């Protein structure tokens, strides 16, 4: 009988579970009372900010020299590392302004523009276990690490050949880079091989932050130092004070960083707020935690167990947009990045500029934006460089207009009719080269939703695509020998607030046979084609290297912006390598415990050093 009763209880529970699970609806939540862009309410010192994400997205074991994505940069620049120069950790144009951080001031270059001298502030320390003042040699050591090939600097190209004597190979040793000189402990001078207008921006990148050789010098391979990182800023990994740095053999990974699970940051006791004008450091602790359940990490915003969701799902985004009580917990910022369709100028039919223009005219950009999730994801791109990086000088520029950005089939056909692949001039691509063209995309949304939109758009002008969704789409499109004709996969964001970081995508002399980011092969030469083992199908591929060199040499200011704007227009009208479709935003939703939210325009993440939470929760 007892077993019978148990069976009834189990059955009843199951039925109730099913019924309850079939009922929808979630609880609402009390919203904050903030304004767009910042939460109002008094920011109080204290509390723990928790950011849950599905993965860390680290590219180099969290070693600053090997990290190339915003997630790591945001933590570095706000919480762990100080550079000679840095940013205000603010949104929009203000957030892209350089300020003195480790240095006493932002210097002007010498007369010929090749020399920059900095004085390092007193009282800026490495945190535990070293607890000592940062000196010139620590800054120099960062560049020695960039020059050390075995450490695999992810953007060493920004320094090699720019700083005199910096060549990537073996560690050049103390004083081994002729273009970096220390005068005592506090003065450092950089000598460049030629004037470089954006050099100060390059000094603000995490790889250029000072590094203690007594710890980092123990690690000779890429990515190893990350778990032993010594802080130079307001926070440190929990457990840093327990790391025994007396010798290389005594070093153990810091307990507060488990690369599989979490980063726990606590206040650095050796940090002096008086030396730092731009980090507010409200929170006591910062927890970046992996949560593999996307649904759960968004649910935990309601309970306050998670404070930050980066790039919420469309369902969550819709909830925040539609609920007036939640809308001030939604933060949307320009991401200084462009998503685009890339066309290979060396592969038919995209070797014909008229075809590329027709593709630009016919593309349903509105459909692509909807595949991304709608207007909150960004504004439709009508040219290559984000408007925010050109000070909106090209915000009205649209060389391939269409009504509601849905594509202009008639105009596209008119362009196609000029193409050699339209044999009868009816505006439809009818040559065999127009059929069954390989299109590569990722096998996850929104790529999977965008592929059919691109197919449908191009079909209107007679180009049929065979789409393939792949796990790692970047491998085929970055390998020149794969000869991928068209891809929906790419996107690009600035590395620092200068258009040169976009211009590198079009340098013919920068084409690499593997790991190539000039997917369109702008400026491809016979020599490079031979090196990469591909035929030069289109000997008339234009180059913009001269224009890039011209703009590179212009000093920072309106003239430089104007020059880059001209490059953008030249690319859109005379080269046409892409169909840019989205100037992507960065979207955050936050919990009700966040009393102050700020965005860091440089890293494209939250400005962790300025965000506050309610310490009582």
């Amino acid at each position: 009988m007892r077993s019978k009763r148990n069976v009834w209880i189990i059955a009843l529970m199951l039925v109730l579970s099913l019924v309850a699970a079939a009922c929808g609806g979630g609880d609402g939540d009390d919203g904050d009372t903030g304004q767009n862009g910042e939460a109002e309410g008094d920011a109080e010192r204290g509390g723990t900010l928790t950011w849950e994400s599905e993965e860390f997205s680290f590219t180099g074991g969290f070693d600053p020299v090997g990290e190339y994505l915003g997630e790591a940069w945001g933590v570095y620049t706000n919480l762990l590392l100080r550079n000679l120069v840095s940013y205000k950790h603010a949104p929009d144009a203000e957030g892209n302004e350089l300020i003195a951080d480790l240095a006493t001031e932002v210097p002007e270059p010498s007369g010929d523009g090749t020399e920059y001298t900095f004085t390092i502030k007193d009282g800026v320390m490495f945190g535990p276990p070293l607890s000592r003042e940062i000196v010139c040699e620590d800054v120099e050591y960062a560049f020695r690490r960039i020059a050390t090939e075995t450490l695999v600097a992810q953007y060493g190209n920004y320094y090699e050949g720019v700083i005199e004597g910096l060549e990537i190979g073996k560690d050049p040793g103390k004083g081994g880079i002729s273009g970096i000189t220390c005068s005592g402990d506090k003065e450092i001078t950089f000598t460049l091989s030629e004037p470089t207008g954006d050099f100060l921006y390059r000094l603000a990148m995490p790889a250029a932050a000072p590094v203690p050789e007594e710890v980092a010098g123990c690690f000779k391979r890429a990515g190893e130092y990350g778990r032993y990182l010594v802080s130079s800023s307001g926070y440190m990994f929990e457990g840093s004070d327990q790391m025994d740095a007396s010798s290389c053999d005594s070093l153990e990974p810091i307990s507060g960083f488990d690369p599989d699970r979490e980063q726990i940051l606590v206040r650095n006791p050796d940090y002096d707020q008086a030396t730092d004008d731009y980090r507010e450091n409200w929170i006591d602790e910062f927890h970046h935690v992996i949560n593999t359940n996307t649904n759960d990490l968004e649910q935990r915003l309601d309970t306050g167990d998670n404070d930050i969701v980066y790039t919420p799902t469309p369902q969550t985004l819709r909830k925040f947009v539609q609920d007036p009580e939640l809308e001030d917990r939604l933060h949307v910022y320009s991401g200084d990045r462009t998503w685009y369709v890339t066309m290979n100028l060396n592969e038919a039919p995209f070797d014909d500029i008229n075809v590329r223009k027709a593709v630009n005219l016919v593309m349903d950009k509105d459909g692509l934006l909807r595949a991304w999730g709608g207007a909150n994801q960004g504004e439709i791109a009508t040219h290559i460089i984000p408007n925010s990086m050109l000070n909106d000088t090209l915000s009205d520029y649209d060389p391939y207009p269409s009504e509601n950005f849905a594509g202009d089939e008639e105009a596209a056909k008119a362009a196609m009719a000029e193409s050699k692949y339209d044999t009868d001039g009816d505006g439809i691509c009818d040559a065999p080269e127009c059929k069954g063209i390989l299109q590569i995309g990722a096998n996850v949304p929104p790529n999977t939703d965008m592929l059919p939109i691109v197919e449908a758009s191009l079909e209107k002008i007679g180009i049929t695509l065979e789409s393939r969704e792949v796990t790692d789409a970047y491998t085929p499109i970055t390998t020149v020998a794969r000869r991928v004709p068209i891809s929906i996969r790419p996107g690009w964001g600035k590395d620092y607030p200068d258009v040169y970081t976009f211009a590198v995508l079009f340098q013919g002399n920068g084409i690499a046979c593997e790991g190539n980011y000039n997917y369109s092969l702008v400026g491809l030469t016979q020599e490079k084609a031979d090196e990469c083992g591909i035929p030069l199908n289109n000997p008339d591929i234009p180059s913009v290297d001269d224009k890039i060199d011209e703009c590179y040499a212009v000093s920072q200011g309106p003239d430089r912006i104007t020059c880059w704007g001209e490059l953008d227009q030249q690319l859109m009208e005379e080269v046409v390598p892409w169909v840019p479709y989205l100037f992507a935003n960065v979207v955050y939703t936050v919990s009700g415990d966040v009393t102050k939210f700020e965005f860091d325009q440089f890293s494209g993440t939250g400005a962790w050093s300025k965000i506050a939470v309610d310490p009582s929760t």
Partner: protein
Amino acid sequence: MGRYIARRLMYLVLVLLVITLFTFVIFYVLPPSDAALAAAGKLPTPEILAEVREQFGLNDPVHVRYVNFVRDIALGDEYGWPGFGISFDTRSPVKDEIFSRVGVTLQLAAGAAMIWLVLGIATGIVSALNRRKLVDRLVMGFALFGISAPVFAVGLAALYLFAYRWEISPGTGYFPLSEGFGPWFGHFWLPWVVLALQYAAFYARMVRGNLLDTMGEDYIRTARAKGLSERKVIGKHGLRASLTPIVTIFGLDFSLLLGGAVLTETVFNLPGVGQLIVRSVARSDLPVVVAVTVVAALFVSFMSLVVDILYAYLDPRVRYT
């Protein structure tokens, strides 16, 4: 028996060699993706790419790499034994990553196993003894649901109800036992139940079917005729024979779980081997993928041997030479 065990252990080594070969080919030879490209950064020079490949051990010919791979597993590498190398993603020794997670997976699997054994066997017995009655139909209905419902769907629904709605469960995540029995148990009971449900359903069906078959045997009729109580007839004679196949299945099920309850760990954010393999596949972290595959194969092979030995003790008719 000793010779049998020795022979099986030799076969085990052979099986593992074959598995390592297949695993190596599948993950290192066939894939179109290039792990070195992802790690080399943007705009890498050929020298940088070569350096990354050197550090990842991707420069040597395939056959040399395979030999090194097997040698390191058997003898260890600079990071210890077994030598699984370093993770392309985290740059940490792979064996440390796996060992730190096996404990979590073991706790998940063990807890779920206890529940599904008790639940599955008990409901199977009840169902068999009440054949064609309402309770039998309810139990089999539960079994059908448990087998059919995907574990991730059940997990998400359970989280919604027990964590978000009713707040009976504290939700996802892992707390080690060292941080207190309450938090540890609080975070585990729901994933245990969710994981156990599917297996309990299957076991209930199996026990019911086996017991029904066994209860129809001549020796059962003889036992009743000799005047034994029904409890003794079922408990001592009927169950023993009908549970023997359960031992085999249980051993394989448990060992498979030790390779990672992928969906359960992902839904409940438990840092076990299953969660590790998901992350590693997504990030093309080949050393981890290969290592987990080999470890999982080792668990299954070893457990299969243990089960076979247990079988001999449970069923006197089984003798190994």
